[in-house]
């Protein structure tokens, strides 16, 4: 492809808060560029997906190639690149943005600017992208254009830059496509330079192996060529190159500026990490593209099979999940209370939920997951530094000189009327305010430094409840800061249950310990005998509660010989018990291990 061709390529993405209409807008762009005629759209896309499914091919179109005949005459190739929407996937978003020259910022005409749209906007600005602010849903009666326009102007956009569309009704789509052509700069790659292509996403397919979604920056990527991944150093032969239009179509080459996918018989997503640079094995580039970061788990939790015989199956399931989830880490560990299991690392709480659910649903494992913890950096008296991601492994205080905890930069958007309670919440969570600005008289943006651990303690629920659901929130990791942390141990029937230990700030330790015990008393069902619950810091008991013994659990009436019903009741009861982990003589349900997350407030 010549430089002339490159001048007719536009690579862009859509950034939006959830539910602001990103996918509807994408559908409309695909439809309007005639990639598929409108009436056939659903059918064709579905047909092609159906076919792929039959073949066992499950990869999705992370980037769609559109052809648009501009009013000025020439036909442009518009590559629309998808970005993950959730805060857990900050780094992945940043790599998708790095594959673009422009971004459409979609704001809902009825909702206005939200935390997620802002967080992604800042990322896009950091990546040097041209931004096209678009107000969507202008057809809705509750649309408030003047307010949203003024919010966007408050963010530094010019009034004439802002486009107004209704993706649902197809209003303003043509104007938007023209703006993409005019305002998103073309790629500026060097065709003669050695190949450099950015991996901005990847997926695992049972037939093709890992499929990498790439943006070629310099040079030309050809089918059949031998490539090297610069971060991992591994080499592969390209077995297939292609684009999505949106149906998958194989092509012979991708030249500078182009976006597509490649398959190269890569067996494991760790072979091909998001952010890595693809180069030619014969003529490698001198420098990889900037910005690569190995996937880094932020939160850690113990994952244990309820039935210890399932340990091997759990290991196999984790290995399989890791094939297409490079951010998941795991290492075998042992808990005195829970037996053999794994300490798993996740990007965030959502990622943790997803993994746990997949393990239970797809691999039919019954699991106990401990409360998530962050990774603490512990400096010992001998000067050595230890990363502690399992509270039970925190060394004795006498050998610790300092504990540092991860802190994040949190952005919160809220209607001004709820500001007070949110300031209070951030103060309770040891937050340091770094910025506060009014976007307009009714909306405020807050920026805080907050300990990562504090936002795991039901922060999101509190944020929502204290703002009647209106506040939104996003965060990114800043680094480590020293903090006065202590370990709270929980004793059940006199024995420390290591899996219930947690690391908390000294200032709130006593209160949290007490609340945790109260909560555990409510969550652990009555047992045959009385069970004592205690919280202790460094061997000193700070709280105690007793679970009274079970007094009554028997089916009284035998209804006309209906034994089946009796049996079902007993089976149900037994099923419930199977979901619990027997720790000593006490059956502890999964919720109890998560109780620590819910004790911050009442």
């Amino acid at each position, binding site marked *: 492809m010549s430089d002339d061709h490159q001048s007719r390529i536009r690579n862009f993405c859509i950034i939006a808060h959830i539910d602001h209409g990103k996918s509807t807008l994408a559908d409309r762009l695909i439809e309007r560029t005639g990639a598929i005629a409108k009436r056939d759209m659903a059918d064709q896309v579905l047909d092609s997906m159906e076919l792929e499914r039959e073949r066992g091919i499950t990869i999705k179109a992370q980037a769609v190639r559109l052809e648009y005949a501009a009013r000025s005459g020439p036909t442009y190739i518009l590559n629309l690149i998808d970005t993950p929407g959730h805060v857990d996937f900050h780094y992945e978003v940043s790599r998708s943005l790095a594959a673009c020259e422009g971004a459409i910022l979609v704001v809902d005409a009825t909702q206005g600017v939200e935390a997620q749209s802002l967080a992604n906007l800042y990322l896009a600005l950091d990546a040097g992208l041209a931004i096209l602010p678009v107000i969507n849903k202008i057809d809705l009666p509750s649309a408030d254009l003047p307010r949203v326009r003024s919010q966007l102007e408050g963010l530094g956009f010019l009034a004439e830059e802002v486009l107004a569309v209704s993706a649902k009704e197809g209003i303003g789509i043509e104007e938007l496509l023209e703006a993409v052509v005019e305002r998103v700069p073309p790629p500026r790659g060097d065709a003669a330079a050695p190949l450099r292509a950015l991996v901005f996403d990847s997926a695992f397919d049972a037939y093709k192996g890992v499929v990498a979604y790439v943006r070629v920056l310099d040079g030309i990527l050809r089918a059949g060529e031998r490539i090297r991944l610069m971060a991992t150093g591994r080499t592969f032969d390209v077995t297939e190159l292609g684009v999505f239009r949106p149906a998958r179509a194989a092509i012979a080459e991708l030249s500078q500026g182009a976006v597509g996918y490649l398959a190269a018989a890569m067996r494991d997503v760790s072979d091909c990490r998001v952010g890595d640079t693809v180069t030619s094995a014969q003529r490698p580039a001198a420098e990889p593209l900037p910005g690569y970061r190995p996937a880094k788990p932020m939160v850690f939790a113990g994952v244990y099979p309820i039935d210890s015989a399932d340990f091997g199956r759990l290991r196999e399931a984790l290995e399989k999940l890791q094939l297409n989830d490079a951010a998941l880490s795991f290492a075998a560990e042992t808990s005195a209370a829970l037996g053999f299991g794994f300490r798993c690392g996740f990007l965030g709480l959502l990622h943790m939920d997803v993994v746990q659910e997949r393990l239970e649903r797809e691999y039919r494992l019954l699991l106990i997951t401990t409360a998530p913890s962050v990774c603490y950096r512990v400096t010992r008296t001998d000067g050595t530094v230890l990363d502690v991601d399992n509270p039970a492994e925190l060394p004795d205080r006498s050998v610790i000189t300092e504990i540092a905890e991860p802190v994040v930069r949190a952005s919160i958007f809220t209607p001004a009327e709820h500001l007070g309670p949110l300031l209070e919440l951030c103060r309770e969570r040891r937050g340091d305010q770094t910025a506060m600005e009014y976007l307009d008289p009714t909306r405020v943006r807050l920026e805080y430094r907050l300990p990562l651990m504090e936002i795991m303690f039901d922060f999101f629920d509190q944020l929502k409840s204290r703002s009647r659901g209106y506040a939104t929130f996003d965060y990114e990791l800043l680094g480590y800061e020293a903090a006065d942390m202590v370990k709270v141990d929980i004793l059940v029937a006199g024995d420390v249950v290591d899996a219930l230990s947690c690391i908390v700030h000294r200032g709130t330790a006593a209160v949290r310990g007490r609340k945790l015990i109260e909560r555990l008393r409510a969550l652990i069902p009555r047992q*045959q005998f009385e069970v004592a619950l205690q919280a202790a810091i460094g061997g000193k008991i700070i709280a105690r509660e007793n679970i009274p013994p079970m007094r009554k*659990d028997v089916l*009284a009436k035998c209804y*006309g010989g209906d034994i*089946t019903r009796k049996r079902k009741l007993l089976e149900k009861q037994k099923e419930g018990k199977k979901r619990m982990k027997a720790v000593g003589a006490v059956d502890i349900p999964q919720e109890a291990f998560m109780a620590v997350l819910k004790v911050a407030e009442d």
Partner: protein
Amino acid sequence: MDAAASLPWGLYVHIPFCPYKCDYCDFVAVGGGRRVALWHGPYVAAVRAEGEYWVGRLRPEPPVSAFYGGGTPTVLPADDLASLHRALAARFRLPPEGEVTIECNPGTVRHAGLAVLRRAGINRLSIGLQAVQDRLLTALGRRHTFAAFREAFTAAREAGFGNLNVDLMYGLPQQSCADFEESVCRVLELRPEHLSVYALQIEEGTPFHLRASHGTLALPSDEVAAEQFDCACRLCAQAGLEHYEISNFAAPDRRCRHNLLYWENADYLGLGIGAHSHWRLQRWANTVRLAAYRDGIAAGAGTWIAEHQPADAARERSETAFLGLRLLEGVDLRAYAARHGQTLDAAFPGIPARLVEQGLCRRTDDRLALRPDAVLVGNLAFSAFV
């Protein structure tokens, strides 16, 4: 495994009619005078036809007992009940010494009617009282008084019933320990041969369930309910009634033969809507709908059966175990091994020993039984066998 062929069996007849429905009841029952009047003739005819069907199909040995349960069977005219029983007793060759129970509620029985039933061969009456305090009866949605119960009890004795059961309930809303103690004392003063003491269970779909889910039902704590139950055990022992099953107390030789069949996992044949049967390792249950039952009986070929479970030896081994543990004397281990072709320990490896270790059961050479102090947490032991 054909030992089941020689099991004793009992005949159950479900009479689903009630003058009204109590607020805690989820039994198969249809309330209201008009529906009873409309349906009782066709229903009794259908039950007789179902009896004929099974006699012809199963050719059963004579049963050891018969039980007319409800609903409130005695809302039907006594003459109709008498002729129904005479017909079934003749067709099934019920022996004259066989135990024949009918359930009734105070207010639905008079001396004359009871005498008719007694003469027809019904020899045991089970009276649903539940509590002696009229305010508690009202709170349960029952429309009789304690005085009406005493009249019914006296009328039954005068009609010649020498074997009477009374049902009481504990764990009722607003029921104190003293209330329950009073109930037990007042009933024992009348010297019934048998007393059933049931914990209130909140069943889905009942008015009580609705109120409980709204938090407007003042239920006593488990501690209070347990104390009430202990009180019943103490008072019955003093009165010479033996605690022989979780909820049942009886004078010597007055255990309920029919209910024992359920706990011994023996056979029974249920006639009528919602009735359950256990026959030669199979279980089935009839439809709970009157019209479907009538039409099914007319169509024949078992079309009124709503659920059927084929013979399943593993299920039987489990049920013999957990049902048998409901009896205070426990599971007869030798009989168990003879019946199932393997010992309880072989069928459930490690379980009996674990239950003993947990303090739930005690074991002698030939029996595994609940410990008396574990009766109220019996499910902990039962569920080990499912």
